[in-house]
């Protein structure tokens, strides 16, 4: 499985990279939304995008909307990974097309369980 981590924080990208690689996921990183869209429109297919909300230039919600406007990316799951924890924000993200929502701070188990919810990981 291949995942794209989109977050302007280098530390947060490193945390997610470590957790995801630990369960055998290939990880690519993008530090903002525009770079992420360039990667997603390239030749590589990603099963999952993990998207921060608050980023400069293009925020995470705009990235979600741009991805969902692109039919070629329909199959890709989107998980918001964010400090935004108000119910209104959660609903906005889901309505925009986010498949899952993870609130910061989180632990490795939470990431693994979210991947299982998305059908990207078998649990035993």
């Amino acid at each position: 499985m291949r995942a794209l981590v989109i977050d302007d924080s280098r530390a947060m990208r490193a945390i997610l990279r470590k957790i995801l690689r630990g369960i055998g996921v290939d990880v690519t990183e993008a530090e903002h939304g525009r770079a992420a869209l360039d990667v997603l429109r390239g030749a590589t297919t990603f099963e999952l995008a993990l998207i921060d909300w608050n980023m400069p230039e293009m925020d995470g919600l705009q990235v979600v909307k741009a991805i969902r406007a692109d039919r070629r990316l329909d199959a890709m799951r989107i998980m918001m990974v964010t400090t935004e924890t108000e119910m209104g924000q959660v609903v906005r993200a889901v309505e925009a097309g986010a498949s899952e929502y993870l609130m910061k701070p989180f632990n490795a188990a939470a990431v693994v369980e979210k991947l299982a919810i998305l059908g990207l990981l078998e649990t035993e």
Partner: protein
Amino acid sequence: MSVSPESFAHVCALVRRRSAIVLESGKEYLVDARLGPVAKDAGFASIDDLVAHVRRIEAGREHEELARSIVEAMTTTETSFFRDVHPFSILETKVLPELVQARARRRALRIWCAAASTGQEPFSVAMLLCEHFPQLASWDVRIFATDINRAVLDRARSGVFRQLEINRGLPVRMLVKYFDRRGLDWQIKPEIRRMVSFQELNLLERWPLFGRQDVVLMRNVLIYFDVPTKKQILGRVREVMAEDGVLFLGGTETTMNLEDSLVGERLAGPGVLFRAKGAAGRPGETKTG
């Protein structure tokens, strides 16, 4: 706060006598980690002082309270929403459709979560029922959620969960549909809370259950017990199960060589469920309830 060998031995004996939980040598670190706060809360300088006091006073209300606090602190309360995923998929796609058909005339369902901890498991079952079996709204459906630990039951009854708990295994569409924000925490909606009855229950003592259970979830409980206790508890589980009821155990647990009347049924996907011998795959209307 490091526990002495003598205190450790006493804690092991106390916990085993009261809960059947086996603490093997090497688990001193667990006693240190979990009883340190208990000792501090009760005003003792060390775990050894707490244990010595409990031994000295022998009986009475204070002894009982402290002994219970020790036992409760040594129970494992690890849980998450829809833990392991597949038991809930099996409930949704196999067990509950069969039971709904089999109970169509009586219109009643009994589900027992035997180690409910802070409530994530019974509330997951309740959300699953609401989500996939709306016809059960007019049935007599009862989810009994029991645990030996009173502190976790109090938390479970409140239906309030911290963000770290909400992050664990709860699909976002369930969060949006069944929870309200309460300050920094989240509270499960009253209609889900009402479906679950929480009750204190020590598996070694009397089981105050009501009627035969159609589904028993006793996951990651038996692992803490010795073989005679496992046998005794599984035998009693069989007695409280409906003839066509099902039992879910934890991923590493089995009835094999422990209770022959409960037979594992392998499924196409991951996970195993256990049914009474002779009832495997053939649910029918039970006579008792």
